[in-house]
């Protein structure tokens, strides 16, 4: 995305007549490119430098450092001491590490599909033509604007304690009462609900995707006798699959990083009984409560690896189910 825009900007800046043709193929046209002058190159890097500096000092450098720290015993006070792969072997013997991996896995593998399904369902509703549709779209998007904030986590907690909203609803329907916050079996559904409630971002993307599906496909299918469900399965889903794939990737990666809501709702403990001890949360505890930075760094790199592997698997499988317009198979 960023490559395309800079390319476009550069061509526009050159003021060439070819600028008009870039609309269709923005990233091409290298053959006729005049050689760049030194000054231009330098200016380019100068303009890039804030980002380059930031990337080098605040992202790449620290990442490399944490890779080194992952193989050390480091408590912030004393100089790091090289310990080989001890941190990694210790990880897999640590019951709380395994618990945090389990908690996170449930959150990702249950939460993400549920959230995407909710986002798609709402997008389908909002795609139909109604009066005041614009207002509905804004309203349904609102939770995502505030969902990651501290205040919402606090409100969420208040909703699910004894005599909170959830408890009253349960009692109204004659279900066994009691708050969810203190019950280790119910905290995960509560966290997933909070995630699902923030369906706005994938919903907007789904909505854009739905608008792209040509009406004539639906019409043709209808003429052939396909009902709404059949049309959804055979037209909407395949046409939407690139968008679905994109959302799936983003949400999966995002879900692995859940932290602040769990931190607030559990009062910084990951409790009750470690039921909200998400991976990044445990990493934080190890690093900043117990000051075992080497161990925390090792955890961070295991997470990077796992997210990388899962992303790769998603890309692999996508060949089977993601259809791009214009693909010939």
């Amino acid at each position: 995305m960023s490559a395309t825009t800079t390319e476009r900007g550069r061509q526009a800046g050159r003021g060439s007549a070819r600028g008009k043709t870039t609309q269709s193929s923005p990233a091409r046209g290298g053959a006729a490119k005049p050689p760049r002058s030194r000054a231009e190159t330098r200016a380019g890097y100068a303009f890039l430098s804030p980002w380059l500096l930031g990337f080098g000092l605040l992202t790449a450098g620290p990442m490399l450092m944490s890779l080194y720290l992952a193989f050390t015993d480091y408590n912030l006070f004393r100089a790091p001491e090289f310990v080989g792969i001890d941190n990694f072997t210790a990880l897999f013997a640590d019951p709380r590490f395994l618990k945090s991996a389990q908690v996170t896995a449930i959150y990702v593998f249950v939460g993400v599909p549920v959230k995407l399904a909710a986002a798609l369902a709402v997008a389908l509703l909002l795609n139909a033509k109604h009066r005041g549709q614009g207002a509905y779209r804004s309203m349904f998007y609102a939770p995502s604007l505030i969902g990651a904030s501290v205040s919402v986590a606090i409100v969420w907690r208040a909703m699910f304690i004894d005599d909170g909203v959830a408890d009253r609803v349960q009692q109204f329907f004659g279900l066994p009462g009691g708050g969810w916050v203190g019950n280790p079996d119910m905290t995960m559904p509560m966290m997933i609900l909070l995630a699902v409630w923030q369906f706005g971002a994938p919903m907007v993307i789904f909505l854009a995707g739905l608008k792209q599906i040509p009406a004539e496909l639906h019409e043709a299918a209808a003429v052939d006798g396909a009902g709404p469900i059949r049309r959804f399965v055979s037209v909407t889903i395949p046409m939407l699959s690139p968008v679905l794939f994109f959302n799936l990737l983003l949400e999966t990666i995002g879900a692995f990083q859940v932290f602040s809501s769990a931190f607030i709702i559990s009062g910084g403990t990951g409790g009750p009984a470690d039921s909200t001890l998400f991976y990044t949360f445990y990493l934080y505890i190890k690093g900043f409560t117990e000051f075992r930075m080497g161990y925390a760094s090792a955890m961070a790199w295991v997470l990077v690896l796992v997210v990388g592997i899962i992303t790769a698997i998603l890309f692999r499988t996508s060949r089977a189910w993601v259809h791009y317009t214009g693909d010939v198979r």
Partner: protein
Amino acid sequence: MVRTRTTARKAAVHATALAAASALALSACSGGGSAASSAEAAPVATDRDIELSLVWWGDDDRASRYEEAVTLFEEKYPNIDVSTQFQAWDDYWTTRTTEAAGQTLPDVFQMDLAYIHQYASNNQLLDLSSQVGVNLETGDYDETLLGSGAVNGGQFGVPTSTNTLGMFYHQDLLDELGVEPPAEGLTWDEYDAWIREVSEAGADHDPQIYGGGDYTGTLWLFIQWLLQQGKTAFAEDGTPAFEKADLVAWVERTQPLRDDGVFFPIERTKQVEPLTGMQVNESVTELTWDNMLAGYAAGAGTENLGLLPVPTGAEGSQQFWKPSMLLASSANTQEPDAAAALIDFLVNDPEVGKIFGTSKGVPAVPAQKDAMELEDGSIDQKIVTYEEEVADRVTADTPLPGEGYGVVEAEFKRLGEELAYGNVTAEEFADQWFQSAEANLGGQ
């Protein structure tokens, strides 16, 4: 931008953020050592402007008291300007650790027993010994009390006040239930039986009232109980001096109460956090540090709370003073003399004693203690009276926690919760805690 997660690359961002902190910390760490601490102490300069930083943990109430005290200090030393900052307990230690790694600890800051070893043995704190008699007077201190701030022969902190454990009881709730308060000096078994009695009496109440919370997961109470069995908690090097069997016995002795649902339930405990069962008027007793009484009274909305000694064991009460709210100074401070003068003022000045009352515990120095204005029936008075009356029960030396205590204390609490939820047995509790103790206690 509503959402900033744009590409897969960002998967690593979370890790990076942590790494950023540690990398910066690392580069700063090579500075090492402590330059200022070895300098000769001289009376604090009055001919030039001095800036000091003062940091503590606590709430708004404590902050306004500190500000008042600082104003007095600045009146006494017009050339010294003190900038202040405060945080809640957890954030406080995160920030201090990061500062320690960057050698930028504040000139004067509150220190806890659980952390002083870690900071002192890593050369982060100023050795105040050379300041004693110059800018810092410690003559009015009880020697063992002052000793709590000593590590490896140096004086790295000075305690402000003392606490001791006690049992709070909620008189209003007892009146409602028609039950007598627990007898002074009752044994642990008698206390358990009393809790059972109250919980049965309060069963039909709405909301249900319990005799007390599950105290098993509090490490300090376990230590208190150990002392009462004639045992010691920690060896010289900070490692546990008791057996796994001792811990198993402690955990098992309250199991029947957990099985019968007599304790204030854990589900409810987690929901009312950070308040406690007593503060929401649903639990009648609680075992904790005596200086917490004011906070409990504020939470419960009544000052009609009583204070009793902790339950006794085979060897009697064996209570101990816990020195609290130590004040320490950074090893890297540019102004060791002024820092020592500020600590001196905060722990010795009678006016400061009046400002803080017992909110930080009973002042360690008599001059401050005597300066407090005690209204009859006030919380301050109850605490001071309690500490006077309990003095003859205080027969044990203070078990001084070593490096890593903070971590194993948190682990003890976590296991206590797992226990209350029925997720671990007494054996598993002991095994897991000893694992944590092995990894964190006694330095590495």
